Each structure stands twice: as C-alpha cells, then as structure tokens.
C-alpha cells in the first residue's frame, strides 16, 4: 500500500489491501480454482447439445439416485462400525487393543477401486465364497439367493470398508481428548456407563464424528473406479461417461454441477462441524483416560469386532489380491512401463503441488486475506472429485485450442493433481509454521533481516520441517487418483491405476492384482506416517519439540 498514491488508496476497500508480496499466494489460489470454475462456466454458458437431452431424460435420475443411495448407505455402514470401534479402543482394554488402535487405520491405504476388484472377485458367482457354499450344500448356482456386490449396497459396503477410518480417526480423537472429568461427573451423578456414553460422551463427540463422516462421504462421492467396476450408475461415473462416450464436455459439466452441489453441502457440513468441535472442551484439566478392562467374553468380543472391521477393509481384500497374483503368475503382465509413467505423472503433480503448497504456507505466515483465500481455495478443491477437475482442465484446453498431445496432457494432469491435492502438502507446512511462535519473525526483524531474508532463512526452513511428510502424501494421492488420470493422460500412457482399471474391466483380475497391490503398498506410506504421528501426539503428553 505504501507505494500507492493517495487518491488510489482512498478508493481501495480497507479489507482488501493487497500488497505486491501477496501476488504469489493469489496466483496459487487462482491456479487451483480455475478447473472447477471453468466447469461451472461451461455448465452455465456452453449449450448441452443433444447428449444432454438424452442424459437428462434417461440417465440423470439413476445417476443422482445412485450417488445419494450410496452416500446414505455408506454413511450408515461407517457410523455403525467406526464409532463403536473408536469407543472400544479408547475407553477399554482388551486383547490386542494397542495393535488394533493403528491396524484400524490401514484400510485408508487401498483406494476404493482396488477394494472393489477384490470384493467383486471374492463374492462373485465363481468366487471362493459362493463356490464353497455350493460345495457344502450341493446346490447349483440357480438354487439360492446371494447378496451381490454388483449393486448399490455392495458399492456402499466396499467404499465404506475403505473409508471408515476417517470417522474412526475423528471419533477416536474426540474420545481421547474429551474431559474425563465430565464423564466421571456423570457417573458420580448415578448415570450408568451406557447412559453416560449416550448423554455425555456422544453429544460432545458428535461434531468431530460429523466432520469425519463428511470427509469420508466426499471421497465416496468422488469415487469412479469402484462404481464403474461394480456397475452402479453414479454421478461421477456419469461425468466420465458423458465425456468419454458422448464426447460432450458441456453435458458432463452439467452433471458435474449437480455433484458439486452435493459436495459443497458436505464441505459446509464439515466446516460447520469442525468449528463447533473446537469449542466442545470446557474443562481445562486433562486427565489420562483410564481404560476399563474387558476380560473373558467381553474382551474376545471387542477384539473380534475390531478384527472384523480390519479384515473387511484390508486383510481379506489384500490377501485375495496377493493370492490372485501368486496363483496365476504366468498371466501377470509386466508393470515396468506403467510404474515409470506413474512416477513421471505423479511426480510432476507432486512437484507442482509442492511449489503451490510452499507458496501458500509462506504467505500464510503473513496472515493476510491473500493467504486466507489461497488456503480456502486449496482445501475446498480437495473436496472436488478428480473427474470434475479433469473436466475443467479439458474445457480450458478446448478453449485454448489445445489437444492432448505432446507435453500438454502431462502439464494438464499435473495441474489437476495439484489443484486437488495441494492442500495435503500445504497443511503440514502451515502447521509447522503455526507451531513456531510469532516472536521468531520479530526476532529476525529486530536483527535487521529484510522480509525476503526472513522468508528465506527463518520461515522456509521451519516450513520445510513439515514438508517431507507433505510431499510424500501429495505424491501418493496423485498416484491413487484414477478418473482424472483416465481422462487426461497422454495417449497410450498407462499408469498403475489405469492398468489395474483396464485389466479389472476385462475381468483379468490376476493381471490387475499386481498394479493394485503396488498402489496399496504406496498408499500404506502416508497411513503409517499418520499412525506414527497419532501415537506420538496425545493430549496431555508433551512431545519434545524444538
């Protein structure tokens, strides 16, 4: 502002006093926002074409119903398992509890489509479960009814089994950080344990649980691979199809807007819940949870409950894929090329996202409106399904007259990856900077450091201490993303995710198993980082940080 002549200064609204130093943050926010904005623009201003009429009249309701039904059922499955599991693990002691505490997070490692391949194979007519049933009973395949994975409940079950850790994690954190004093007060007033759970603990944890559920449902809505494989029409599936089969970005954009409304609703629900979760703690005194010991049948029951959840979300599907891969080794196609493509594309996306994340984190130190804008944009874009963002990039490329040849698709994909995942890289850095006291910056200034030197020599090293985890998470997220990669990849460039999808669609599950497993192994890295972080930062325990 200092450089502006006075009359201009008088006209600028006080809240929007952007400085030249804010330019990078504003630019980062714009880069992130353009794909989703261009989808909105396309939906509003580009005609839908003939395809849109067809989609609107015959497909839209099934798509919308598929997404809403899947969301509702997945929410039910996740709440029914994750909340009791978190309660058992935080408030009770039973055989295997310390192991289950982190085992229950592992299902986050496998993307929904990988779980869908494994469960579809396991529960299919030719799969081991039904074969065993026929062997035991002597029935033929037509003699009995068996729940089909290739249905809306099946899709909800598969997605919920991989995404429940979001709910488990937030519920667990809420239970751990609750005031034990309030719980004990309830008990001393004569409330039974069950009644205190119902009337004191759950109401206090409800905002946190709702926030976790909203996150998990955003991922549910974003899924493409599982819905496609299990043959359930959903909005995301419809978006990819409208673009792929009808070649109609505008029609796809209109479907995307419906999905966006749903996602923004979830996003607002999450923000609102999280805001409320912050004020739930009234007692400043913290006491370690004293766990109730469950012995005998109770203990075995609790362990079985946790084991079932972990098995459904991780152990059984991953074992099935390993089995399939080993069983038919001769059918395994080489994955070297796909691995290389994955490293290049996810690497490009992670690198671009990392730069944007760094810009946002360093700007956040200044706490201005520019930084707030960039952070909000980044965290909102994370909620937008990859298919929608890819569509936005296609609209922009079309507007510029560019085709998916040469370096263009690589850059476009890196852009979409960065748009969606920058926030996962930025937040650890923002957190690292937030932990450093404000006086560090003042100290640097009092020692004569210019703002630039301060950013370079004080803020940057501190931000980078949170960066390695952020960069890794960014990379893995890019590598797992399927629909955007399918839509934007360079011609005949298959990544691991694309390969797994293609083989699975051809019912060549033995060949799909290896790339799917590789993705899962990569997905384990951030999950293990997360569980390590959890076990090292509990309220009331002071970590020795510099």
């Amino acid at each position, binding site marked *: 502002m200092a450089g502006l002549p006075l009359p201009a200064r008088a006209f600028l609204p006080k809240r929007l006093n952007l400085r030249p130093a804010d330019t990078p943050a504003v630019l980062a926010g714009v880069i992130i926002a353009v794909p989703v904005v261009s989808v909105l623009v396309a939906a509003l201003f580009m005609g839908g074409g003939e395809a849109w009429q067809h989609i609107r009249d015959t497909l839209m309701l099934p798509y919308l119903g598929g997404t809403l039904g899947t969301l509702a059922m997945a929410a039910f499955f996740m709440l029914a398992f994750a909340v009791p599991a978190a309660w058992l693990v935080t408030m009770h002691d039973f055989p295997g509890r310390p192991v289950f505490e982190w085992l229950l997070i592992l299902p986050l490692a496998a993307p929904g489509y990988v779980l869908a391949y494994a469960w579809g194979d396991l529960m299919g007519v030719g799969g081991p479960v039904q074969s065993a049933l026929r062997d035991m009973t002597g029935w033929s395949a037509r003699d009995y009814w068996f729940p089909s994975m290739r249905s809306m409940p099946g899709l909800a079950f598969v997605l919920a089994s991989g995404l429940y850790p979001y709910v488990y994690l937030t519920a667990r954190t809420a239970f751990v950080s609750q005031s034990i004093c309030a719980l004990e007060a309830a008990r001393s007033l004569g409330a039974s344990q069950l009644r205190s759970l119902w009337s004191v603990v759950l109401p206090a944890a409800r905002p946190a649980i709702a926030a976790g559920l909203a996150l998990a449902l955003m991922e549910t809505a974003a899924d493409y691979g599982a819905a496609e494989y299990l043959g359930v029409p959903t909005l995301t599936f419809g978006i990819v199809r409208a673009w792929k089969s009808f070649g109609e970005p505008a029609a796809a954009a209109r479907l995307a807007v419906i999905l966006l409304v749903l996602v923004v609703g979830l996003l607002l629900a999450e923000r609102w819940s999280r805001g409320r979760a912050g004020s739930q703690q009234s007692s400043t005194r913290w006491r370690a949870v004293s766990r109730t010991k469950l012995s005998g049948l109770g203990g075995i029951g609790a362990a079985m409950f946790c084991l079932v959840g972990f098995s459904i979300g991780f152990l059984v599907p991953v074992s099935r894929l390993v089995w399939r891969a080993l069983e038919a080794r001769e059918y395994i196609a080489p994955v070297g090329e796909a691995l290389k493509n994955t490293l290049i594309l996810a690497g490009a996306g992670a690198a671009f996202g990392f730069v944007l994340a760094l810009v946002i984190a360093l700007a956040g130190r200044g706490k201005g409106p520019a930084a707030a804008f960039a952070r909000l944009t980044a965290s909102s874009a994370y909620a937008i399904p990859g298919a929608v963002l890819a569509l936005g990039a296609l609209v922009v490329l079309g507007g510029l007259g560019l085709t998916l040849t040469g370096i263009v698709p690589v850059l476009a994909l890196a852009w979409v990856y960065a748009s969606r995942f920058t926030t996962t890289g930025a937040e650890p850095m923002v957190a690292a900077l937030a932990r450093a*006291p404000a006086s560090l910056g003042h*100290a*640097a*200034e*009092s*020692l*004569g450091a210019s703002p630039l*030197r301060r950013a370079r020599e004080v803020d940057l090293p501190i931000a980078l201490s949170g960066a390695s985890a952020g960069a890794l998470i960014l990379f893995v997220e890019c590598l797992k993303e399927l629909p955007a990669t399918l839509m934007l990849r360079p011609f005949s460039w298959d990544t691991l995710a694309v390969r797994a999808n293609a083989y699975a669609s051809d019912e060549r599950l033995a060949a799909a198993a290896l790339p799917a497993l590789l993705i899962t192994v990569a997905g384990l890295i951030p999950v293990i980082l997360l569980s390590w972080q959890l076990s090292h930062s509990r309220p009331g325990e002071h970590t020795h940080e510099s």
Partner: protein
Amino acid sequence: MSHSLSAIGVSRAYHGVRVVDSVSLDLKPGVVTALLGGSGAGKSTLLRLFAGLEPVDEGEIRLGDRVLSSTKTTLAPDKRHIGLIFQDFALFPHLTALQNVAFGLKLLGKDAARTEALAWLGRLGLTERADAYPHEMSGGEQQRVAIARALAPKPAAILMDEPFSGLDPALRASVRDAALEAVRAAGIPALLVTHDPVEALEAADHVAIMRGGKVRQEGPAAEVYMKPVSADVAASLGPVNRMAAADVPSGLADVAQGTELVVRPEGICLDPSSNVHASVLASQVTGAMNRLVLDAAGQRLVALVPRHQAPKAGEKVGIRLDPALSFMFPSAKP
C-alpha cells in the same frame, strides 16, 4: 555514542480502547529501565511501539534526534537497529547457538561474524554450547543465547519483554544478573518489561509504573518505592495496608478526614512502649521475616518483622508506624 530512546506522548488504541494513552518515557543510555504493571496495563504494547512492531496513533518514538515512529511514518523493525528479547526466547529452532548469534552479523562477512558470535557466546559463558541446537539447551542457556544474539549486532537500544519469567525461579536471579551486566556494559538504553515488582526493584536502575495505559510514576527504584505518588502506585510495588481515616486505630497516626493511610507491612513496628495495642491473629515464617496478621481495635493489619522478634499467635503487642514507610493520600472515594 549512544542516544536516548524516547516515547513522546504516544498513544495506541485497539477497537477504540486506548491501550497506551499519551505516554512519555525516556530510556537513557546505560540505564536499565523497568516498565512495571499488571496484565492489560499496556506495557507490552508500549514495547511494541518502541520496536516498531506497531504504528503509533499519536506522538513520536525517537532515537536521539531521529524520528523512528510518528503518525505519518513507521520505520520498519529491521531498519531500527533495536534488539528484542522475548519471554519465549524466540531462538531459531533450525540454527545452532552460534548460528543464532551470527544471524544479525550478516554485514561482517562469514568469518568475522563467526569470530564475533563466538566472542559473545564466550562473554556469556556459552563457548561449549556453540554447536548445540535450542532444543538441546536448558532454559537458562537459551536465555543467554537470546541475549548474546540481541547484543551482538551492537544495537542502538535493547527491549526485553518479560525475559526472565519463563525461567526456573532458582535460576532466575543468576541468569538475570549475568544478562543485565552484559546489557549495562553495552551502554545503550534498555527497557525491561515485567509484572514482578521484586524484579523491577532489584534489577533495574529506573522504574516506570504503568497502569490503565498511562505511566503513573517514574524515577530511580528507591525513590519510587519510598515516595509513591498515589496509593495505587504504592500497591503496585508490593503489598500495603490501606485504611480510610475513620478506620485508623486511635493513636496510631493523625489522619485528616478525606485522607487514606497507606502503610507497607515492614512499616508496622513492634514497640512495647507504644500505647496502641494489637492482638496477633497469625504469625507465619516467610524466610528472614515473619508475616504477622494483627487485629488493632477491629482493623486488620499485616506486618513484617524480623523472625527473632516475632511474637506467637494469640499474644498482645504494642505497635507504631515507621513514618518513612507510611504515606497519606487523598481518598479515592470522598
């Protein structure tokens, strides 16, 4: 050649509340000035105005003849050449002790900066800790590194915001003495913001008492303690007995109507020949002195007397006032 750092009629308001209200304060070279006040008194804000971390709404901050802050301009903190020391020390976590101290010595060049930083660490007894990172050091060591870092670039003044309150009480006095010795040796204006009257009186040469955004009194430590200008100032430097004229036990002092009597606990002396009597309600050991709670004709008084003279609870004693430690002020309430 050091100059005074002066605030001339400065004010600063947040949301219409004047946190610092027309304050003038002169920090003289080679003198440690304590700025004493409770929380919300405005003392940290005044320090931030001196440092240039915030602009002034009224008045000026000057170093000698040079204007650092006025309503028109605020010289950036990094251009002021004023050292800051924080309660949390604010050492850069990714730099060693030596690198922290060398941070402000950029202009010297690498080798000279290293030599100079090592010399400063040596002066504060930290030569062995040069390569340690902040998290590997004790609180006292971190504090001394912070002092060395602030003084190394030869600042024109130094400002300290509650610098010792984060330290272990057992350690505090010795770290404080070492730190302030180095500050005095630098011969520059020094401001010590504190809420602890004992620290202000023991450590500073000059004391300014701040309350409600205004400096209520300033002067040499002994003078402010012995000649407070108001009952509130007297109370902010330590515990006092306050009595309205009507409540003063008869014979203890002549107090005119509409006047308040303020007596420090050590100003109430035991005197067997006195005809003012009090009964001892409690007698507590507090170190070298005993704290007596007395009842004199219905008025509760607190006295500090040497332990060997202390009576036991339940005894009757004669008391008189030490005029040097008793003050009279017009009553706040008529």
